[in-house]
């Protein structure tokens, strides 16, 4: 009996120790290099990566760069015989491209082997940054839900609300349609003698991410997602681009055509604009008293109209990774519940839905209570092999409207051929 008990204890000790030893072994001597964007989620991970380094006797090197540099740094690495990066974070609109080019590994066997629970993620994020054609290539890391960031201290001011009522013959409300948003932003900017809205019209990614909200908000899209015929010149798209152009010309901060989301954040932080349609992940920086004058003065609401644009990042392993076992070990760790929770509390945008039900999390980040609604009414760019080029093509359209004053209808109609060429022969759309 005593011997039996001792054997059981030994077996239990070995049983619990074995996975740790295996995990330690798989990463020993291998550094993990990751290319990341300079955003709060990267800061949140940087602050806790030491735990993984200590547990697995390895080093995690995070190379944080501006978003615009990421794709061009990744592509040469992914086309080389061995990748410089051991773990990838994949933007939602690179997914199709990376899959078609064969740059990322199918994770299904690893998920099944280690019984990783993927039901913890928002289904919309799993569809956007998880599965492609039924196979799992990524685990969702963080989302960049977008919506209206607005100055609640201004719009809740009784004097503002009285003036609003006198102007629009109704009580104050967050705009429900884009036309209403357009009117309210222009009026409120004039009323407060400041920029009605902070906008990011810089080519390519900033203007496209922002304007896509207007497109989806009006119910438009780039393609009919069943036939893949371009719908970019639809009346909804023309209206959306017209409203966007109207706002950038008549209500945005000076230099909005050359601004990116950092500039939007800075404009808001200095208290120079009332509204923005931008990323929720900017919220923690707006709440930072060190360099923000609008702490506790901002609120978040869903994009007016039908849908908003949803983007997200997912963890993936490059097909040419040096040490797949170690890369997977890192992804498992970073997406484990306690690590995901720590990242969320540090200002990240969690992709696991259960975190949004945590009272401590909502207490710390009250605007996050709106995320569920935003995700329910949002959609991503189409998952196609050339979606990166779709962004470039739409940026060209927006540029010709905003900088060259081409009529939205003409610019959108002229681009239909280019949008059609992007889906021609795409294996993901068959």
């Amino acid at each position, binding site marked *: 009996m005593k011997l039996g008990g001792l054997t059981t204890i030994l077996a239990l000790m070995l049983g619990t120790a074995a996975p740790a030893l295996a995990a330690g072994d798989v990463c020993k001597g291998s550094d993990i290099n990751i290319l990341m964007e300079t955003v709060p989620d990267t800061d949140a991970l940087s602050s806790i990566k030491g735990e993984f380094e200590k547990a697995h006797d390895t080093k995690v090197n995070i190379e944080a760069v501006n978003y615009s540099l990421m794709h061009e740094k990744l592509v040469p690495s992914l086309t080389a015989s061995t990748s410089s990066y051991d773990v990838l974070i994949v933007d939602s609109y690179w997914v199709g491209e990376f899959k078609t080019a064969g740059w990322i590994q199918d994770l299904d066997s690893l998920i099944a082997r280690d019984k990783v629970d993927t039901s913890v993620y928002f289904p919309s994020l799993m569809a956007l940054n998880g599965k492609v054609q039924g196979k799992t290539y990524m685990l969702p890391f963080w989302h960049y839900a977008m919506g209206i960031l607005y100055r609640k201290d201004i719009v809740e001011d009784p004097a503002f609300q009285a003036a609003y009522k006198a102007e629009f013959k109704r009580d104050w409300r967050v705009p429900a349609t884009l036309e209403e948003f357009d009117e309210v932003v222009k009026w409120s900017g004039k009323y407060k003698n400041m920029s009605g809205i902070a906008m990011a019209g810089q080519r390519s990614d900033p203007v496209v991410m922002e304007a896509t909200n207007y497109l989806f908000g009006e119910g438009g899209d780039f393609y009919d997602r069943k036939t893949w015929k371009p719908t970019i010149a639809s009346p909804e798209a023309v209206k959306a681009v017209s409203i966007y152009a109207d706002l950038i010309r008549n209500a945005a901060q000076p230099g909005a055509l050359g601004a990116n989301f950092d500039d939007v954040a800075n404009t808001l932080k200095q208290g120079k604009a009332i509204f923005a349609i931008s990323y929720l992940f900017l919220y923690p920086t707006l709440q930072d008293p060190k360099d923000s004058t609008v702490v506790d003065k901002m609120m978040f609401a869903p994009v007016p109209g039908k849908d908003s644009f949803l983007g997200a990042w997912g963890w993936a392993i490059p097909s040419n990774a040096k040490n797949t076992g170690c890369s997977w070990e890192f992804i498992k760790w970073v997406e484990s519940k306690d690590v995901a929770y720590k990242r969320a509390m540090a200002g990240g945008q969690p992709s696991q839905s259960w975190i949004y039900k945590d009272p401590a999390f909502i207490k710390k980040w009250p605007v996050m209570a709106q995320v569920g609604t935003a995700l329910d009414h949002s959609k991503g760019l189409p998952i196609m092999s050339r979606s990166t080029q779709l962004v470039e093509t739409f940026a060209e359209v927006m540029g010709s409207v*905003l900088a060259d004053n081409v009529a939205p209808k003409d610019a959108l109609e002229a681009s239909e051929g280019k949008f059609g060429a992007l889906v021609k022969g795409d294996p993901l759309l068959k």
Partner: protein
Amino acid sequence: MTVTTTLNHQAGKRRNWAQYVFLAPTAIVLTLVVAAPLLYSVYLSFQTYIITYGMGDFAGFGNYQSVLADDFGSVSWVTLKLTFLCVTIEFFVAFGLALLLNQPHLPGRQFYLIILLTPILMTPVAIALMFRLMFNPSLGIVNWLIGGLGIPPQGWFGDPHLALGTVVFVDVWTETSMMLLMLYAGLKSMPMEPVEAARIDGANRFHILRYVVWPLMRPVIMVTLLIRMIAALKSYDLIYMLTQGGPGKETETISFYAYRLGFRFLDIGQAAAVSFILLIVVIALTLFLLRVMREN
């Protein structure tokens, strides 16, 4: 006689072989690092090659036709405007400064020279970041300064009417010092006897500049303009950092267009075609200027 001739012939052969042996490493390295990539890029320009899909079929002149029908015209016009404005302004500023620095008995010459040459020591990325901040519509000192004069804040890099001019301003700040260095070196190495002779003959400063200094400096000026023009035609780094070719395509140069096709559209065939057209343009301009120099 016959023996001597044979020996000379053999020695000549050995010398010939020795020349080839000594030249071989250079030739091999140049072939590998210059000729092979160049020929490969020419080959790629005739292929359908989108990285996502891999190498496709032979495209003939399809890539050239596509880029010429698409944006090549507009980006060429932007490149020409940028090159003309930058090279012209930089030349006059640099030549004027070089003449001032070349004044005899100028106090503090070394100090001025160090200050004026500072931009050469800075990387274009650092310069671009510095000017992005200075011209930032909300945070920048430039808008703050013009605000003091009652001028409303401007968008600078984001304003279609101001973006190219603002890029030219930054380029002038960055590149003038290189021109200054070359022109100042030319003035320093210029023989002074003709200048002194003209002065004794009663020529005023303008006449000395127009009829003595200018002709003597012409070869240096031509080389300086040639080098700067080729660099300006290939403008990429400042455009990338300052405007990304925007707003719209107001500041998109040929090199940035090639980059965009290659790294954003991942269309290597079209990017190679654009690069090759740019190479032909640069070679043609170089040959033209060299011919002008020879004729002068």
